[in-house]
């Protein structure tokens, strides 16, 4: 897994990248009550807000970590937003993206680097 400074994790799955948020981020957000996802097929640029997470406290945006196309979104989050707190690293992934330029993934943090950042 790779990690961004915005507390997202990226898991490479063939030619796709799966995007979610870290346990640390989920804990900071508090109880998630609503997740707004983009539509599959949306072309996005790195830094575009693609997901809105509403917790009981506030709304937070999740930015696209890389340029590419959103090819699949996790519809289970619409009915069960609490998955983000229960299983942030697993079943609560947000989107799968087809990456325009795989070299963009090289700049992200390793797990150890991410752990150092939040320590």
């Amino acid at each position, binding site marked *: 897994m790779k990690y961004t400074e915005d507390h997202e994790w990226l898991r490479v799955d063939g030619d796709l990248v799966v995007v979610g948020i870290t346990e640390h981020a989920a804990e900071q957000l508090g109880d998630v*009550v*609503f997740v*707004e996802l983009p539509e599959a097929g949306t072309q996005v640029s790195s830094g575009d807000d693609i997901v*809105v997470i*509403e*917790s*009981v406290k*506030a*709304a937070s945006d999740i930015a696209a970590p890389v340029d590419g196309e959103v090819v699949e979104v996790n519809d289970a989050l619409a009915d069960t*937003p609490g998955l983000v707190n229960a299983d942030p690293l697993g079943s609560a992934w947000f989107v799968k993206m087809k990456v325009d330029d795989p070299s963009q993934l090289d700049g992200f943090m390793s797990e150890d680097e991410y752990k150092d950042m939040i320590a």
Partner: protein
Amino acid sequence: MPNLNRTPLHDLHCELDARMVPFAGYEMPVQYYDGVLWEHLHTRASAGLFDVSHMGQVRVSADSLEVAQLALEALVPVSVLGIPEGRQRYGLLTSETGGILDDLMIANRGDDLLLVVNAATKEQDVAHLSANLAGCAVTPITDRALLALQGPASEAALAALVPGVAEMRFMDTSVLDWRGVELWVSRSGYTGEDGYEVSIPSSNARTLAEALLASEAVIPIGLGARDSLRLEAGLCLYGSDIDTTTTPVEAALDWAIQKARRRGGEREGGFPGASRILEELESGAPRRRVGFLPDGRAPIRAPARIFRIGSDDPVGEITSGGFGPSLGRPVSMGYVETEFSGTGTVLEAEVRGRRMPVTVADMPFRPSTFKR
């Protein structure tokens, strides 16, 4: 955190692993280990303990109680003279233009009045009271903490320590003894639940808090759940839902203005902004605070503009909103032009550039459970 005040329960919050945030100049717990959702639901199902020591407690006294009551009536549209001994009433400090300087509780304690005001406004309130309450002593109480115990199990939990609280009704106030410590108790709160607010000398506050938390029914509750609880109960947050730009009638707080202070009443007017407020009581205000139920699951928070369907001219705004854990759905409140304030009216809120349908709804969103 630098430059922030701490309440007498600060160390206890830290030991309970609270997440502390700055609020109204204080370092306050926003949530504890279980999180906002659980704290909210637990309060409605059992009982929750809130540290509200940041709020202002102010004693108003004079040569006679009546002098103090009549003096305060010059600043609030409330019948202060009509508050019986041992009772309290919700009130508003109004401005010359009919806006709201603060909302507060006014208790008649027999010998004096005890006011509880908002944390963010307490200094300006004390200055305003001191400058304008003729013949009165205005004394901020700075050596006492304020705890709130809210929820259906509150009576049993507090009465186990202080049996006298069981006899109190909603909005009663009483001075009671607990192990030689003088408690100022009212049966009131900010959650829509039965419960109490207890003023206690700062040095005894932790012992009382721990004694209450020792009950299986009671867990500590932070500001996060305090906000979602009051929102479901349709209660205003000063600075968000009411302020100097909203009048009591616009804010749908007409009920806080008793007949004695209205046109034709025994002590009509005589408070700041009376001409505008009394006129609005008779003829209505151009806009009204209402509840909104958003369609779907997305919370609509402040600020968000409200439109008629398909129109680009705003007719209102959201002033508070979020997810209502006990309702399992988002709820909001705000202002809308009176013409569109009828229950059931469907309007649109603008959220992140998109229009979302909202329906005007009665408040409280969830029936209150006061012990009257």
